């Protein structure tokens, strides 16, 4: 694992931001850390980058305890955050010139192509750039070093659609060459890049899975009966957000398999007219799980 946390705890005064978080990111994967606001995503990434120190538990990055990360490890890590403060009085070009000597792996040609593709004005002071441009500048300062691990903290926050596309396009070009750890609310964007997803809430990991398995095991199901639906007294495991409208029952099955669903539906209902099963977008998976967690259904 290129990133691993075990029983990670971090508190700010009385607020526990992380409560025993354990995640594992495989090398070469694109791991999306998702969760509602205040779930602890940014805190997790800051602990991993040794910007914050955990109270308890451990975090390793590139096989090194995050508290002992040195220049040797940081030379293999790219970090882009919506809160990142780049030197406002330097131009993009000046800052890239400043950064180059710190990285042995810095690719000058890649830097030029990134500047061109992202359409970044190199001679304008970073402080005078718009938020979107600053985010692109941050990405332009992270990709040319050809990082082994790229950490992105809410990179799409506040970006318009065009900038998001440009940002994602550029990211996807290098996605296969590195491990990406990304936290974001923009699940539609993440869906294109993530191979794994971890869902955290209130500082705890609720689940982590590969996207293939996650999207494979979550389905939106509509069961149409001959007569009026009477919801089962004991809801089968994994059925969330049950809704009844006349003779139609809809729910999200988070443990989907065709065989299991058929058996469950047949067991609980008579006079089945139709069973409609549809794949669920990551956004819907996230909102379903988030609501369930919030409402204490899970």
């Amino acid at each position, binding site marked *: 694992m290129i990133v691993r946390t075990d029983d990670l705890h971090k508190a700010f005064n009385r607020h526990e931001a992380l409560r025993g978080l354990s995640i594992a990111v495989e090398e070469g994967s694109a791991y999306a850390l998702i969760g509602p606001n205040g779930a602890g995503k940014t805190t997790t990434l*800051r602990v991993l*980058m*040794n*910007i*914050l*120190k955990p109270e308890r538990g451990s975090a390793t990055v590139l096989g090194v305890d995050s508290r002992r990360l*040195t*220049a*040797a*490890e*940081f*030379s293999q*890590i790219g*970090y882009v*955050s919506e*809160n*990142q*403060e*780049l*030197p406002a*009085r*330097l131009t993009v070009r*000046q800052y890239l010139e*400043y*950064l180059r*000597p*710190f*990285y042995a792996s810095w690719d000058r040609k890649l830097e030029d192509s990134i500047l061109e593709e992202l359409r970044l004005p190199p001679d304008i002071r970073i402080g005078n750039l718009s938020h979107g441009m600053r985010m692109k500048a*941050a990405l332009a*300062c992270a990709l040319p070093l050809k990082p082994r691990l790229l*950490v992105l903290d809410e990179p799409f926050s506040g970006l318009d659609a065009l900038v998001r596309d440009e940002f994602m396009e550029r990211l996807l070009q290098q996605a296969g060459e590195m491990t990406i750890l990304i936290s974001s609310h923009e699940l539609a964007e993440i869906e294109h890049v993530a191979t794994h997803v971890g869902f955290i809430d209130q500082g705890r990991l609720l689940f982590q899975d590969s996207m293939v398995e996650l999207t494979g095991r979550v389905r939106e199901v509509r069961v149409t009966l001959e007569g009026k639906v009477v919801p089962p007294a004991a809801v089968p495991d994994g059925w969330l957000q049950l809704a009844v409208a006349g003779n139609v029952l809809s729910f999200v099955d988070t443990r989907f398999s065709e065989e299991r669903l058929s058996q469950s539906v047949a067991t609980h209902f008579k006079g089945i007219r139709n069973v409609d099963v549809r794949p669920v977008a990551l956004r819907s998976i996230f909102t379903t799980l988030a609501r369930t967690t919030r409402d204490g259904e899970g």
Partner: protein
Amino acid sequence: MAWHILKKDARLLWLAAAALAFTHIAIAILRSWLGLFPHTPQLGVLADVLSIIALIGVAILTLAAMHQDAVPDLRQDWLIRPIKPLDMILAKLCFVLLLVQAPLFIADLVEGLLQGFSFPAATMGAAARNLTVLCLFTLPALLFGVVTHSLTQAFAVAAAALILYLAVFLVGTVMLFGVRTSVGGTGLAWLVEAFWAGAAIIGTAMVIGLQFFRRATTLSRALIFAGGGAVILSAFVPWHLAFALQETLAKEPGAARPVDLSFYPQLGPVALPAGSAAPRGTVVYVPLRVRGLPRAALLLLDRANLRITDRSGRTLYEGRSNLSVDGVGSILDARLEVRQQGNADSPVYIHQRIFLPADVYARLRDQPITLEVDESLTLFRSQAKYSLPAAGGDVRLAGLGRCASRIDADGDDVLIHCEDPMRVPTCFTAELEDSSGSLRNPEREFCDPDYSPVQAAFWPDTLHHLHWGAPFFDRAGLVHYPVDGSRIDGARLLLQTYEPRDHFTRRLTVHDVRLADFASPHGT
């Protein structure tokens, strides 16, 4: 990589650094042009104000350099870059030395040279001031800079610290409770300043290490808070400890060994001149005989601690006697100065003034007591004699530096202003002598002792200054000077300087006396 980081900071702050360097140089040139007695006093004031602004600029530029790569901030980009803490520390220190301190040093050197001092003297003077500014301004600013993330935050913290200091120390301690600093106003005051400098150097080293290697901001801030408290409390260092340290640093240890102080009742009560104003506060005058004082020496009392006991040895009062505890009078009021003007070893007789709280005096005045006075004293020896024209003089005198004299605008005082890159005398006597050498005005003395091994000055400039005035004409007509306005042409000012050679203590014990016996003729 330190050099690389330094270049980045210089690129970002070059304008501020250049403006500050220009200000230093402008001040140096302005001061040199104005001379010892500015022909346009307003420009002298401007130079003084600019000096304050420049010192504030030193602190702000240092803060700004630290904030380019703020340590406590969670959002700073450098935190996730492969930058070694040691490189960052070196870069910041180099910035401070090259872009903050070096321009000041160069400007001070230029000023020293423009004022006509030799290169070594100007260099030493500039280096001494540079070190003082480093310890008192730059390093504290660096400390604030390394535990804050913006100028606004640093100013807020500094303002809070200042308010806390004023509230707790000045108002709470000194004004409400009458607690006085132990060495303030004495020649030992430099010890506190030296402690500050040491605390700044050690504190900076510790906090920089903690911040850049461990990013322990809370601990660093706590250390700075504790260090600040220690710096404030250092002004209350126990006197005997401070004086013992000063004794070890004496230039001529043992020189005062023959000096003896004893109670000498035969001298009788003090006889103040007719018409003298009543003394401020409750004062008694103890007759003393001083023996063993070398010729042309000066004995100065730095502090006296008084203990009054009854016949059974029970302490009735204990306190500091050369300082009014009622808030009236001052250290200067009760200073004891003994000068040997006769042959060596001739005894000198003098009354030592001792301040007492009014209620203590009222309670004990008529009862038999034992008086114990622990005297902390410094022996000064005559250092050098100088002679310079009383008016229109502009001379260079070894040990005194460059000195100019003139008659003041009122036409009743001779003013002198001396300056030197290394040090100026802090104790001297002066006489005005007419051109024939036959008439002299009464001798005047000045002593503001400073026992520091190296005089430290940071304002207004790199030079140490001595300003002094001697009257020769009384417009009210009450005093007539032998060398008056009619003889001032060609008159000369004779200066005799004194240097501290040895520091020592003596205990004076007087048995079975009454305080009333030592009262002044005015009563107390």
